[in-house]
Structure formats: C-alpha cells, structure tokens
C-alpha cells in the first residue's frame, strides 16, 4: 500500500495512535502574531496549516539549535548520550522536506557520519504536506522543487475535495510501513482523487513566479569579484535571520559551558553572516567585510554546493525573503548576477 485516504473523522484517532509510540510534531500557533512553529501537539485542534510556512523549518528537529554533545566532570568525559525516541513530524512543507536531504549530505555524507543527526533522522517519520497556496515569497519551482514535491519526505499528504480528507502517499520504505502500521485509519484511494491531486499540483505550480536559475553557478563564479556584492549588500544589517531561518544552512559552533567542575560541550547554530564566525584568536579575520560574508552565503548555496554536493543548497522556501529585516531578497541578488554580462 503506497497510497491511502485519511478521512477527516479519523485524523484525531490516528494522532492518538501515533502518540502512543512516538512524539508528534506539527505546526502550531506561536506567539501573538498568528504565525506557526513546529511544536509537540496532542490533537488536531492544535495543528495550524497556514499559507505562510512555519517560522523555522523542521531543521531544528534534526539539528537542534542547542544540543549537548557530551558532559564532562573536571577534565574527564562523563557522558555522551545520543538522542533517542521515535518521532513523527507532520505538516513539513515540500521545500523543507527537500532541505533535509541536503542536511543528510552534510551530516551523514562527506565520509564522516554525525551520530547525533543520524540518530534523529533514523528515528523520525517525515510527513510532508503539499502546498496549495504558495506565498509571494516562495520560489521552490525556481530551484528544482515543487509545491507537491516529495523529496526528503517519507510520506506526502495533500488536501482533497472530500470534506477535509487527506491523501497520503508513501515515498520511502518508512512511509510504506507507516501506512501499513496504521492501515485501520485509512481508506482506499479512488482514481478521481488521484486525478484531482494532479490538477491541484499543477494549479499550485502555476501560481508560482519562476526565476531563471539555469546557468546561475557560472554567472556567480564569473562575478565573484563583481562590485555588485558591495552594492547589493550595502543595507545588510549583518544579523543571522537568513541563516537561522534557512532550512539548509547548517553552520554551527561548539562551546563549553561549566559551573564548578561539571559542564557540557554543546553545539549551537552559527552563521557565516556574523563577523566573529571567521575571526581568528589573533584578531585577524579573513572575511572581515559584510559583502564578503553575504557572498559566502550565496556562493555556498548556489556555487560551492553544486560542486561538492551536486545541487544548490536552497529550497526556495522564501523565509529569508519574508523575514530579512531590510528585505535584502535573495531572489534579487540572484537575478542581478543572472543579468551580469
């Protein structure tokens, strides 16, 4: 069984069943402005799937912003505990699910596995939710994704015309197993539903403005010394919003914290946009200017990653477009280099 229909009335029961064996995360209200964040949820009433994506992507569920790597006592290691516990994430947008595959490249690939990330990936089922209402800031189709994309997801759920019923499609062994395990809650899918699904997918895609990214890498490589980097980043404030909200940005710091003899070695998100990121203890900084730092971020995503991982490291989720305090807009930067002669 790789496709199944979940009727609205069964949704709550399914969640209850899932919660018996795993933690469940889904977009829930966060803060006073009505936006959402992945939170542990107990019932469907708490789940809010809005046109605007969650504030932060699902990245933090696999690569938490702060994570204890080990504990120490004096100068001796006292404990290394890897994360445990199965969890299910529901409502991950296709752009964010796709981003997980790139985090896999970084944390599991490269000849060295990161056990913390790996453990979480192994113990999670990712249920993506297709987008029927992509936002103005979204550009997934420009970077090879789609509002109904399933890359990185174990299952893709999508809305149907049938009174809130959701179509579930398995896209991995884990996803197939999920449908078998919870088969009691699901009904069979008919041809009309699948046809409707394709129409919806096409309609969602049509809503999106496409950015031509065809020979972007070549253009960026050629423009590495272009004065555009300066002019386009003049108003950048140098905060970490773009990197922290990005579902693919994965740079981190490792620091020790202690009180008395007891302490922890933790890793935490970091950003190449902070001057201290590359600052040597000597005071020397090989990337001292804002324009070089923004260049690093863009080049890493659209040129370096293409060389090292064979793909751009941007899923077009648009968070950096929406949340940049000065509206730098990554699409505008890319377009400027596309037009560079």
């Amino acid at each position, binding site marked *: 069984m790789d496709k199944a229909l979940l009727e609205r009335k069964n949704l709550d029961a399914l969640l209850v069943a899932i919660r018996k064996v795993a933690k469940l995360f889904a977009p829930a209200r966060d803060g006073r402005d009505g936006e959402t964040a992945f939170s542990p949820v107990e019932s469907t009433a708490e789940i809010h799937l809005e046109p605007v994506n969650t504030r932060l992507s699902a990245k933090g569920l696999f690569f938490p912003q702060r994570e204890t790597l080990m504990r120490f006592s004096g100068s001796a290691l006292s404990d290394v505990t890897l994360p445990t516990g199965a969890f299910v994430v529901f409502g991950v947008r296709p752009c964010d699910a796709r981003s997980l595959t790139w985090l896999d490249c970084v944390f599991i690939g490269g000849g060295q596995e990161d056990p913390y990330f790996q453990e979480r990936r192994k113990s999670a089922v990712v249920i993506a939710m297709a987008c029927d209402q992509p936002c103005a800031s979204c550009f997934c189709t420009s970077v090879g994704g789609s509002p109904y994309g399933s890359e990185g997801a174990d299952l893709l759920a999508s809305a149907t015309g049938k009174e809130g019923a959701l179509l579930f499609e398995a896209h991995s062994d884990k996803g197939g197993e999920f449908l078998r395990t919870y088969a009691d809650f699901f009904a069979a899918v008919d041809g009309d539903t699948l046809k409707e699904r394709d129409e919806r997918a096409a309609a969602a895609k049509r809503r999106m403005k496409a950015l031509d990214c065809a020979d972007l890498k070549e253009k960026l490589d050629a423009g590495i010394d272009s004065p555009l980097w300066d002019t386009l980043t003049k108003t950048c404030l140098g905060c970490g919003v773009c990197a922290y909200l990005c579902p693919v940005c994965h740079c981190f710091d490792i620091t020790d*914290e*202690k*009180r008395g003899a*007891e*302490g*922890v070695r933790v890793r935490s998100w970091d950003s190449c946009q902070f001057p201290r990121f590359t600052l040597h203890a000597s005071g020397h900084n090989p990337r001292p200017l804002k324009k070089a730092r923004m260049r690093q971020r863009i080049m890493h995503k659209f040129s370096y990653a293409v060389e090292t991982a064979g793909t751009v490291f941007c899923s077009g989720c648009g968070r950096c477009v929406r949340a940049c305090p000065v509206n730098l807009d990554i699409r505008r930067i890319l377009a400027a280099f596309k037009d560079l002669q």
Partner: protein
Amino acid sequence: MSEAAMDQGWQPRIVAFLCNWCSYAGADLAGVSRMQYPPSIRVIRVPCSGRINPLFIASALQSGADGVLVSGCHPGDCHYLSGNLVARRKFALVKSLLAHVGIEPERVQFSWVSASEGGRFASLVEKVTEDVRKLGPQKKLAKVP
C-alpha cells in the same frame, strides 16, 4: 544573628560588590570589631560603585548567587567625587528593570556604607540575608549546565 535563623539550615549565597574606599573598609571594620553577621556573603572588591556593570549583577545571578548586594560610599563621599552618583542612576534602572521582568526586588539590593559604619554593614548583610532567605534559592537566572 539569632540562633533560630542559624538553625534554619539553608544559608543563601550573596555576592557583595563593595567599593574599595568606603564599603569594603566598612566591612573590614565590622570584621575587626568582631561584629556578628551571617556568613552568607562573598565579597568582591571594586574600585568604586561606579565600576559596577549591570553584567556583574547578571553574571552573579547566573552563576547561582541567591542575591546580590552592591554598596558604595554615601552620596557626596565618593573617593572619585561622583562615581556613586552616576552609578545611582544605573542602579535605579537596573533595580526597576529586573523587578519589572519578574525578578524579586529583594534579590538585588543597593546601599551605601561608609568606612566608619561597621555596624551598618553588619546589619545590612543581616537584612539582605534575611530578605533572600525568605525567598529561597534563586533559580530564575541561575544556569545549570
């Protein structure tokens, strides 16, 4: 300090920032005069109460202090003429802001003690200790790694 209070068991840990010229000397006087006060304070000597950075206070609380006491020369008596007067404005704001976000006002206290006021110092420590003891251990800003 009363026997009863001593018997209560839990002794708060209070970081006391004392200015070099007045309050530290006042504490010294309390000591050489063999005045009794609770063994709750850990003294950090600073050149002037004007040297106090609010971060000192925050760091003390984060490091697990149950209370913070800051004391300098009485207004008008500053060794550096006006260090304590400039500091007083900072202190007023810090005290108010910490209370505003919900940290018990008794946790962070400010006072003036001169070099001759050994008795005042001892009773100040007694008061602050009692205040903090009533509140119990400070957990709001304490960091436990």
